[in-house]
């Protein structure tokens, strides 16, 4: 039996995912520093309301409140032993909403990064990472998630470890990375390199792509980078609603619903199949995005200039792909000994 996401993709040529989890939960009273995953147990009504808001706004897919629900992150709150349980509850709550939607809505079990740096530079070993991800994956599976959804990953090692864990859990999955440093991930992965990595996995994801990062323009440049590799695999675009701005003691994202509607249409034209938002994306943004995707015709693949014109400039001149691949590395004076 195939999963709900694969079935939807057979009949539809674009799907809308959800918006922000953190931004919405903070608006419901979450205090910074607290683990959002605790709310699965303490305030299930609020988590149900969050999921429902995405479904009501027209999302075909929503992510569970389990982004930081791995043992490595929960450890910061002394709750490392509760990874499986809190993840399970997040998916159970998701099932409640999805099963009453009256249409197919995919419950995607969110899996965020461990927050650790891999050995030898950091302390996290491959085996430990697989174990951490596997535990969370089993919890999400028990709770009834349709697919697992890896997001905001920077290191290719971490992406691979999660893929291995998801295979152990026997779950279909999607996985996105965050391209926030000069058009690459923090660990230097380009959009082109991600496509190669994804295709080299023994259990590749249903869809792959980019989330979070720095603004809608950068995210679309990354999507164009994926598409340029000629991949047939569905591409996911989940960009932030603009850039956070500070006003009189509080923060708001400067991306308007109209801008996010523009972004959604451009993301589809750029080659994305699954389109959603990330930080700052509220239900009102999703409503505008959905309407735009339903009513506006597909257009040709946008150029970088068109993206700049409609959504604003990029955070860096290049992104490490195309003509920008040959970074001017220092030329060595000679060989090292022993090589």
């Amino acid at each position, binding site marked *: 039996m195939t999963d709900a996401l694969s079935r939807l993709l057979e009949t539809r040529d674009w799907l809308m995912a959800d918006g922000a989890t953190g931004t919405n939960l903070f608006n419901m009273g979450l205090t910074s520093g607290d683990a959002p995953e605790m709310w699965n147990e303490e305030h299930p009504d609020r988590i149900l309301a969050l999921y429902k808001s995405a479904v009501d706004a027209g999302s075909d897919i929503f992510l569970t409140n389990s982004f930081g629900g791995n043992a490595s992150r929960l450890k910061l709150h002394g709750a490392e032993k509760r990874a499986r349980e809190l993840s399970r509850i997040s998916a159970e709550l998701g099932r409640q909403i999805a099963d009453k939607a009256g249409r197919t809505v995919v419950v995607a079990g969110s899996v965020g990064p461990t927050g650790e740096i891999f050995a030898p530079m*950091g302390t996290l070993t491959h085996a430990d990472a697989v174990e951490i991800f596997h535990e969370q994956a089993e919890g999400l599976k028990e709770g009834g998630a349709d697919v697992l959804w890896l997001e905001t990953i920077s290191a290719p090692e971490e992406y691979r470890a999660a893929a291995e864990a998801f295979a152990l859990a026997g779950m279909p999955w999607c996985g996105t990375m965050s391209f926030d440093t000069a058009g690459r991930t923090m660990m230097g992965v380009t959009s082109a390199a991600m496509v190669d990595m994804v295709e080299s996995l023994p259990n590749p994801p249903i869809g792959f792509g980019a989330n979070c990062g720095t603004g809608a323009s950068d995210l679309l440049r990354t999507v164009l980078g994926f598409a340029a590799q000629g991949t047939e695999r569905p591409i996911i675009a989940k960009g932030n609603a603009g850039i956070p701005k500070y006003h009189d003691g509080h923060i708001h994202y400067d991306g308007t619903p109209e801008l996010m509607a523009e972004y959604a249409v451009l993301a589809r034209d750029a080659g994305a199949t699954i389109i959603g938002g990330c930080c700052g994306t509220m239900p009102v943004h999703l409503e505008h995005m959905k309407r735009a995707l339903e009513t506006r015709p597909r257009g040709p693949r946008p150029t970088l200039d068109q993206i700049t014109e409609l959504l604003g400039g990029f955070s860096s001149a290049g992104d490490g792909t195309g003509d920008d691949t040959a970074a001017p590395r220092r030329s060595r004076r000679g*060989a090292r000994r022993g090589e």
Partner: protein
Amino acid sequence: MSDDQDDIILADLDDEELVQQMFDDLYDGLKEEIEESVNILLARGWQPYDILTEALVAGMTIVGKDFRDGILFVPEVLLAANAMKGGMAILKPLLVETGAPKQGKMVIGTVKGDIHDIGKNLVGMMMEGAGFEVIDLGINNAVDSYLDALEAEKPDILGMSALLTTTMPYMKVVIDTLIEKGMRDDYIVLVGGAPLNEEFGRAIGADAYCRDAAVAVETAKTYVARKHNQAAMRA
């Protein structure tokens, strides 16, 4: 490495060539080579402080510039910092013995409510790589935690980090408390984190916003030099 290049024997290089080679080896994160080169320079009678500034810090400056410019990324920088650390481990006791001037001292921590630490850790590593002494307070620091550390450690610099838009305003709480206690001007206050920008840094009364770890190091050097100059003028 291609075979058509000759292998390099570090001990055969003259001082100038060896320092150039150390720049390359730092860039490539070769810890053992850096340790060997430091020992060679010491054996040739170099002062520990000169090895630190002219070879290691100068080499890390190149790494920092390429990180800032998006040519190097975090994995390469971590390797370089690790190689630098290898050299520092040899020099540290000797620097203390010879009473060499210090680059400066920094207290750094992620603010209250914020449990993210990768960015802060990177800044810490790069600062150490540049020869600063770094006191890391970890995550989720309340005002008192910063104040206690400032009194105990007497650093030149206070560094605060936040990854969340909901926690970055807490930096202002810390700075306002410093002002209230008349301590603000005793420290260089640097702030950083993904959602911040220069405008925010100015708005809350920090000395500077640092876009990334490389910028943090450059900014720290500039401000510490300025502070020393002012102290010299008053003396």
